[in-house]
């Protein structure tokens, strides 16, 4: 990646989508998700791919919020990547996040050509959601299924130890 591409990506990541409520929601594209799926530092990243129309995703979202709020593990970063249609952010995504009291970071995927970026997250991903990537600079695991809180905690522990 050259400097210019990196610059464009950074600018794109900084562009915020402000919903009706004033809650800023960031957008992300295929290049952005490729970067976010391959950071190399001492943080463990948890990327949960979800959408308001996906009922198992809606059911499990609270467990990611719980991990996000857990101050016992500061080296964990939760990012909820929404695959909702961009024209439904105001009508569906923001009301949903407010209702569920979600304070974890949320990104809205803008690149509808999933084939351009899906393999960057994990080549085994068929395209079904919910799907969760947990990784740090040493280990990574991709889970294409709904998780329980205990299972998520266990997976994070395995990545970190």
């Amino acid at each position, binding site marked *: 990646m050259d400097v210019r591409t990196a610059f464009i990506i950074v600018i794109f990541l900084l562009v915020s989508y402000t919903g009706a409520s004033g809650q800023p929601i960031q957008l992300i594209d295929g290049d952005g998700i490729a970067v976010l799926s391959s950071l190399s530092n001492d943080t463990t990243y948890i990327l949960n791919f979800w*959408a308001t*129309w*996906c009922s*198992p995703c809606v059911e499990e979202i609270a467990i990611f919020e719980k991990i996000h709020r857990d101050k016992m593990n500061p080296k964990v970063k939760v990012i909820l990547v929404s*695959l909702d*249609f*961009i*024209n439904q952010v105001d009508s569906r995504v923001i009301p949903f996040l407010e209702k569920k009291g979600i304070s974890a970071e949320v990104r809205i995927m803008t690149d*509808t*050509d*999933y*084939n*351009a970026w*899906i*393999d960057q997250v994990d080549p085994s*991903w*068929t*395209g*079904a*959601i919910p799907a969760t990537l947990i990784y740090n600079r040493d280990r990574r695991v991709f889970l294409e299924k709904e998780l329980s809180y205990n299972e998520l905690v266990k997976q994070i522990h395995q990545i970190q130890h």
Partner: protein
Amino acid sequence: MKKVFLTSVLSILALVLVHGGLKPGDKAIPFSLKNVDGKTVSLSDYSSQKGVIVIFTCNPCPFAKAYEQRIIQLHNKYAGMGFPVVALNPNNPAISPDDSYDNMKSRAKEKGYPFPYLKDNQNIYKAYGATRTPHIYLLEKSGNNFKVAYIGAIDDNAMEAGAVSKRYLESAIKAVIEGNKPSPATTKAIGCTIK
């Protein structure tokens, strides 16, 4: 008859165990399922066609809904060229009540589906390896059977038909008509998990 049924069940089971679903080039798995008009539709009914666009889809999924009109247009465009659409609904109504047989009938009537909309209550989707809705399997005639030519998405923009730039399925159909192998022969797409 019972024996034939058992054999086909066993062979489907064996295929599922061995392959975990079909890949391009594989022989298509036959099916015989109930349509929304009460009649049974089988893959073998299409033996005079050049191919079949098999689409696993459902009623409530926003991606399936976003593609409804495009699927109708695909059928209207390609059925006459020997590639009709056959839609299969694989969702279990006990888990997804919107996908009950009655609700399928209503949707087909309301949208005026010009193609069969079959209740997949025999786990055909598992045999094919479909994981979401909509999930496309383009079949092409190969001798007396069908083989899989393309698996994946319809195009690259579920939300907005007008903003599509890559028509994966149409390119695959064109390749088959011209006697070529579709490229790509598989794509991935986000969709709703089959329930």
